[in-house]
């Protein structure tokens, strides 16, 4: 059954699937959903790491306030 996997893919995408993607089978939809999740996680973690690296340039005393400002929820 691919309905669950398609729903998972839609949720991961955060927008509707193009019509033709409705023909994806369960394993295909699941693979895409997992790949998208991993890509988001990788991107987020790489950005966090890059921000932390960049923070080392900020004087130690002001580093924490700057970090809080950058990491606060929008």
């Amino acid at each position, binding site marked *: 059954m691919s309905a669950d996997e398609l729903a998972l893919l839609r949720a*991961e*995408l*955060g*927008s509707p*699937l*193009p*019509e*033709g*993607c409705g*023909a*994806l*089978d369960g394993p*295909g939809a699941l*693979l*895409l959903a997992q*790949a*998208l999740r*991993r*890509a*988001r996680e*990788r*991107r*987020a973690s*790489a*950005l966090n790491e*890059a*921000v932390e*690296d*960049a923070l*080392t*340039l900020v004087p130690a005393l002001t580093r924490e306030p700057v970090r809080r*400002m*950058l*990491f606060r*929820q*929008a």
Partner: protein
Amino acid sequence: MDTLRGRAETLKLARLLDVEPHRLTFLEELPADDVRLFRERVVAALFDEDRGRLDRIAAMTKLLPATVAAGIAQKALGPRLAAALAGRLEPARAADIIDRLPVDFTARCCHHVDPRRIAGIMGRLDDDTVVRIALVLAERGDHLTMGRFVGHLRESALRSVLPRLGETTLLRTGFVIDHPERLGLILGLLDDEQLSSVIAAADDHGLWPEAMAVAGMAADDQRTRLASLTAAQPEARLDSLIRVTAEQDLWESLLPIVSALSEDELRAVAALPALRDPAVLDGLVRGVVATGLWADFLPMVGVLPPTARRVVATAAGALDDEGLDGLARGVEKEGLWDLVVPLIELMDATARRRVYALPAFRERATG
């Protein structure tokens, strides 16, 4: 054409998701336009996340002179964060910083830039910077990134960079170009000798599918030009094109190119040894049935050598009822009766009876 577009779209999505392309080959079964739409939504899902934080960092860089911002980007941010920030800055500001970065670093950033922001940034970079970035990307073999960018290059930048790119780079980049409507301009900037070398390289490097995809995406006049230059290649090269097409079942891509040939060119192609091979011809007929490209195919049948024409007639006569019905409907739709009747006459008696019993043919006979 859809098969090759599907392959290109699969490569682009695999890059975006950072997975091995072979794991996504199942996507080639879907309409290429839907895979492209899906990819665009994946771009939004990936690049719109974290916008708040990136905007805050981008706002901080506004306080710095471009030279200082460039120094920080290179020394502390790294290509991924620098590219993410470039996507959040005003394009003019991003271009101002990029102009001050070493080209190797910029080329690494290109891989990570939000594709939706490329046009704004590229439009503000000077030609020299653009050309140097393109050459680094070419050297790194990063054709997918080049395919994203090339559609946004100004004509003056294209004029500088195209003669400096190798034939295989042109083929691989053209295959994955994000704005194929720019191919007309790009091909127009290459003279016949350069294009003939690109075509020869397609054969030498196993890139006929890439070449067919480029020709298929080109505007009519450039497709005709590419078709003629291809037909002028030595017989062995053309034979290899036909063999690759048959092996990968790419008739839907090749036939529209063949149909752009003049009658003399078509005769030269029709005389190729590969087009006397019954297995190739059988696959060709099935490819035409599957794609309905009768208008592209039947003129070529008319100039095939008699033996080959008979093989085509036999293959067509052996089609099941659905296939024959498809032939009849295609012929009716395109008004190809004059071309198909000689082919039917070459079929055996049983096949002829089946064809003439089809409603479309009966109506034609009585009409």
